[in-house]
């Protein structure tokens, strides 16, 4: 097997770089999912008693909303422990 010191460091630093990028993007992902959650909640809010838009609007968009509804569900499950959620988001272990 061919071992090259140069290759090793290249891989090492590229992983390091990926990790940094992950850290940067983590908060944006949370934000994006939260926005999708709001979108779904506005559109399908009648489930939880919010005033809803004209019904047909929800009916019209329902076929494309699989991912959004999943997020809404997950958020509803996590809502029981908001403190843990927030700590997780800002990176306190």
């Amino acid at each position, binding site marked *: 097997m061919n071992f090259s010191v140069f290759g090793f460091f290249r891989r090492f630093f590229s992983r390091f770089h*990926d990790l940094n*990028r*992950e850290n*940067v*993007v983590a908060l*944006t*992902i949370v*934000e*994006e999912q939260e*926005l*999708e959650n*709001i*979108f779904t909640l*506005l*559109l399908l809010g009648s489930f939880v008693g919010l005033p809803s*838009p*004209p*019904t*047909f*609007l929800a*009916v*019209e*968009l*329902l*076929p*494309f*909303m*699989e*991912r959004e509804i999943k997020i809404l569900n997950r958020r509803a499950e996590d809502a029981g422990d908001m403190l843990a959620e927030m700590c997780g988001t800002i990176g306190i272990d």
Partner: protein
Amino acid sequence: MKILFFTGKGGVGKSTMAAAAAWQLSQKSRVLIISLDPAHNLGDIFGVDLKDKKSCYTNTLYLKEIDLQKLSKEYLQREINVLSSTYKYLQTLNLDNYFSVLKYSPGIEEYALLTSIERTINNETDFDYIIFDTPPTGLTLRFLALPRITITWIDRLVQIRQKVLEKRYTIHRIRGTLSSEETLLDYKEEDDDILKTLWKLSDNYQALTKILQGENCSVILVFNPDILSLKESQRLIEGLNNLNLPLRLLIDNKVTEENIEMVDHVEGNMRKMVKDVPVNRVYFSKALLDCKDGKLYDIQEDITSNLL
């Protein structure tokens, strides 16, 4: 092509006036009259049996009664088909037919009505006049308000959706080649099905609002010389003002010599609300009461002079 909506409280004679106007206009132009009222009596006025199909009364006059239930069903069936094709895998388990419960969704009737108006306006372009005989005040105002309410909602939803896509784009740019759920999501506006659907709906409604508020659309308010009719007409005028819909003619129906004082009182009050809209009086006709052969649309007064 001109579009006329006959509105008013239940029982004031909207359908009769709409039929009379259609008959008078059809002497010189091609007219299509459509009843949107769930309790139809357009067929009765002309003495024919209409079954949700456009039927020819004379060469220049066509009649149609809209079947609201059938329309709602058709609309929902289309939606159910989209759902079923998205969740096609459920067919293997024989579970796809459960979506059919959607046909009991509330609020679909107004939308179905509006869709039918839109379709009629777009398809029946070879008529000079399309006359709509509307259901009583409440439902009429609700479906006429629908385009504006919907556009407001769509605008808000589009804003949020664009924000979502913006964030997705940011995530995609930073993460680049890393494979994960987020990087595979659509981030271009023209790829997003939800945004595309919202835009399509928004375009439809803006076009419809433009037609309804435009030069060629007129709302005609029919009322009777009595207090109840006056109160409801005032509410209707306010509603139409809020929606920017053009009220172009008032028809005071069932005027008699005995109630002439009330006629002046009611018309005076209406005048205060709408100053430059002409009023046509239609006298109560005993001939109509005695009429057994069903030519109820043939009235003495010319109510179309202000509509040409």
